[in-house]
Structures are given as C-alpha cells and as structure tokens.
C-alpha cells in the first residue's frame, strides 16, 4: 500500500506540482488549502504518513498548524516538512523546536522533494 502524504498549501499550482511529483514517485496524495483544513483532514483521514506544509496561509498558518498537530497525542509523531518562501533562520529553528522534520525554501526541485519524502517515510 502506498504511503499517504497530505499537501497543505493555499497555492493550487504548488499543490499540483508537489502532488504530481509524489504520485509519480508512488505515493498517495491528499490536499488541503490552509492550516485549518489541514488540521481537519489530519483528524478525519486515516493513515496519513507525512504532511508537507506551507507557512504563510490564510485561516491558520503552517507553524500554527504544526504546533496544533504536535499537541495532539495521537499525531505528535506525524512527520511534517515545511515548504515555503520563508527562509529566516529563526523561523526554521522555531519549526525544528516544534517538531518539524525539515524545511524547504521555494522554489524546489521535485526530485529533491521526493528524496526528502523518501528519507522521512521510506519508499
């Protein structure tokens, strides 16, 4: 069974690009448009192996979503990779302290993203 990855980004183009790369690499992909929807999806969808999440989003930003996910006992070990235009070192450290698995500054190379996902959740 393919590992299921949740892609959370308010940009449909980014969700499509990430989704296509992951589908072609053999993963199952589901999407959410903002942090609030991402959190809701995590609570209702079964067997999510990993989350790829933007930072600057309406309704709930990615760092808020990360903190909320990690605060849930049954989701605290869910890997979250941040994918964002933000590159400030203090934000990256904040995500690390909150339990994120990594940080990519957009734009990204699809094969680089897939390699990171493979490293985090396996093939």
């Amino acid at each position: 069974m393919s590992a299921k990855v949740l892609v959370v980004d308010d940009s449909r183009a980014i969700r499509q690009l990430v989704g296509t790369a992951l589908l072609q690499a053999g993963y199952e992909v589901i999407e959410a448009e903002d942090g609030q929807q991402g959190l809701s999806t995590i609570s209702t969808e079964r067997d999510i192996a990993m989350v790829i999440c933007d930072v600057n989003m309406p309704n709930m930003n990615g760092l808020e979503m990360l903190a909320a996910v990690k605060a849930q006992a049954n989701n605290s070990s869910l890997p979250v990779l941040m994918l964002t235009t933000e590159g400030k070192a203090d934000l990256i450290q904040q995500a690390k302290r909150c339990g994120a698995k990594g940080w990519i500054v957009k734009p990204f190379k699809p094969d680089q993203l897939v390699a990171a996902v493979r490293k985090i959740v396996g093939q």
Partner: protein
Amino acid sequence: MSESRSLAHEQEDEVRRVVTEACVDMLSACGLPVGKIAAGRLVALSEHDLAGFIGFTGRVRGSLIMAASSRIFSATFPTMPGSRQPTPDDLLDWVGEMANQTLGRIKRRFCERGLDFDTSTPTAVKGRHLGARTPTRDGIIDLVLTAGDELVSICFELVPPATGPIFQGAVEAIPCSQEGDLVLF
C-alpha cells in the same frame, strides 16, 4: 496608502537594485530570458491581462504587483511530465504564487540588509491593460523587464519607516536560507 513619506534618493536606488535583482532572479528561475529596459524608454503594456498582488507589513510596509500577459504566465507555469495543462483558474493561482515567490526573494535581500517584514497572502486578477502606468510618486518603484519578446511590469510600493533610513548600515544581517535550500532536522 495615504502616507507619502519620501525615500531618500540613495535608499530608493538601493531598493530599486534589490527589487530588480529579485525579479530578474525569479523570472530567470522560471526559465525566461530576462533583460532590463533602458530607463525612460516608453513601452506598451496593453497585453498585460494577468497581475499578482502581495502586501507586506512591519517596520516598512507596502506591496508588490507583477503584471504580464497570460502567455508569459503559461510559459512559467510549473509542470512535470505527465501533468495536465493549466486551466485559467490554475493560471490565476500561479500568478499570485509568482508574486509570492518574488516577494520572498525581495524579503531575503532585505533581511541581508537587516530589515524584515511580514508578507500577506497573495491575490491575482485577470483583466485588460493591467500594466498601464500611472504617474509615479514617491515610494513607488516601477520596473519593466523583457522576457524574450514579451514584457513583465513590476510595481513595488514602499512606505518607509516613520524615523530613520530603510537600511541602516550598522545593522546585522538577519540570517536566511536561500531559495531551494533544504534542511532535514
């Protein structure tokens, strides 16, 4: 914006340099052959039918508008082998994302000069003559870049801080990762 605080001439030059560099970087990364238009040359921007907008706030605040034809945005739309062609809605979304990534590049360069700001969520519009120029005023930097046979127009509006220069020479750079950097913890 109601304020009209002036940018000091040398600060405006530096902001223009930063914005130009960031825009050229963004468009080049999208695979476009980018060039600069000589200052003062009149250009027709009537074919600009898509524009992305994004704002920012903090010690300085303002906005970035990036306008071009749908041909340019279609050419830059990120695709992978096997992915479908962008719909008009996809393209509109991508226009906003391009403004977002361009402002991200501007922000990194501002951080290198010790100045940070918070970015808003981008939006985009489709219309006609979106690159039309209005009389310029203080705090607005207008750029037109060539992208092959096409033109891309950028309007960067900046309200400087109430006191002090935008870039304060003795301030330390704010550490930032570069575009494309990946770190796994």
